[in-house]
């Protein structure tokens, strides 16, 4: 009881035991927090910040990559469309050219055939003419010799003879 009576006098004067316990308590708190626990959490906080920033950077990178690919695809698509249009155009041109060539060729062929036919006709006509020439001479000679051989007194006989001659001429043709 006398301990309480003397200690109660001045609240600003500490007791030795309190000083010791107070110091030990705080040193323990600071020692464990400051050297064991806080470094761990601060490291973790730094890591977390880094990973979040890293994640953001990665996402941004991926986005950029996606954009780049999209652009590339678009470009390729446009190129392909362009190429297809060009090919179509080329094909049309080629087709038109082929048609034109074919038509020209066909016309040339037709002309050639026509010309050949005309030449043949001409040749046959010449041949016929030549044959006619020779035959006309022979026939005329033969007819003249018959007319001269028979007496040409009677006009009726002359007619009959001419008819007969012509009839003979036609008969071999009919027989053939």
């Amino acid at each position, binding site marked *: *009881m006398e301990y309480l009576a003397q200690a109660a006098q001045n609240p600003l004067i500490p007791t030795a035991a309190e000083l010791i316990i107070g110091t030990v308590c705080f040193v323990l708190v600071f020692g464990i927090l400051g050297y064991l626990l806080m470094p761990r959490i601060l490291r973790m906080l730094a890591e977390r910040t880094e990973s979040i920033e890293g994640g953001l950077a990665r996402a941004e990178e991926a986005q950029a990559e996606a954009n780049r690919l999209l652009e590339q695809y678009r470009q390729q698509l446009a190129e392909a469309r362009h190429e297809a249009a060009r090919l179509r155009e080329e094909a049309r041109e080629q087709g038109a050219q082929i048609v034109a060539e074919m038509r020209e060729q066909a016309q040339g062929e037709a002309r050639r055939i026509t010309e050949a036919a005309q030449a043949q006709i001409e040749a046959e006509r010449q041949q016929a003419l030549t044959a006619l020439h020779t035959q006309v001479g022979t026939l005329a000679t033969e007819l003249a010799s018959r007319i001269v051989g028979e007496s040409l007194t009677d006009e009726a006989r002359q007619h009959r003879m001419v008819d007969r001659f012509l009839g003979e001429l036609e008969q071999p043709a009919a027989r053939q």
Partner: protein
Amino acid sequence: MTGEVRLTAASTGGCHLFSGCGYPAPGLQDFEFKPLFTVGSLHFTKPMLLAVLCAAGVIAFFWAAFWRPKMVPRGAQNLAELGILAVRDQILRPALGRRGDRYLPFLVSLFFFIWVCNLMELFPVFQFPVMSRIGFVWPLVIIVYLLYLYLGFRHQGLWGYFRNMIPPGVPFFILPILIPVELARFFVVQPFTLGVRLFANMFAGHLLLTIFYLATWYLASLSIGLLYAVGSAAMVVFVFLLELLVDLLQAFIFTTLTATYIASSLEPAH
């Protein structure tokens, strides 16, 4: 009669209004405790037990929170991170900026130890603010001051440290007055106010709570006193909430001043 005895008398119900005994006003004696045990000449008392419990509690909480920190925080880690980041952003950064981050563990220890010690006044059973015993305040002040002086000497030099106490351009004849005043400020007034502010607030808070606790009980008799007892009980609730704020505020102030001292040691104020 000692406080313990009178408190016991009041709280075990013998003493009420009109029952012949006076109001057992709380006083200095309520801050004295019978030793739980004694080693040599050192008495181990309830406040010391509370201090040890507070230290153990703070360590246990942060151990649970930070021993195996997770990338995605959960539970205790979440709460403790909130706590240390609050100390960093509300106390450390405003005073010291980013260069002060290496003092964060010190300030966090200081803040949470003081806060939990203060909160002891509100918990039933404990019901005593450790920091209302100045023996627990001075060690903190001494440690803060040792750090303060050490950093000052290291960053400004021994001579430069004292020279920087005197603002430049002061007339020569003022120095004989200024130097003692400044020295007194640095080595007596500042540490004294740092410690006593915390101590006195906790002391007063405990006194206030005790006054209204005791008054409520003392007035609660079958008489007009019952009415006053209800008023006193309302005051208990009010003071309780007030102390909840003061406990936090005093821990905050002590830590903020420490941060300011460290900042002024790192570079002279003028």
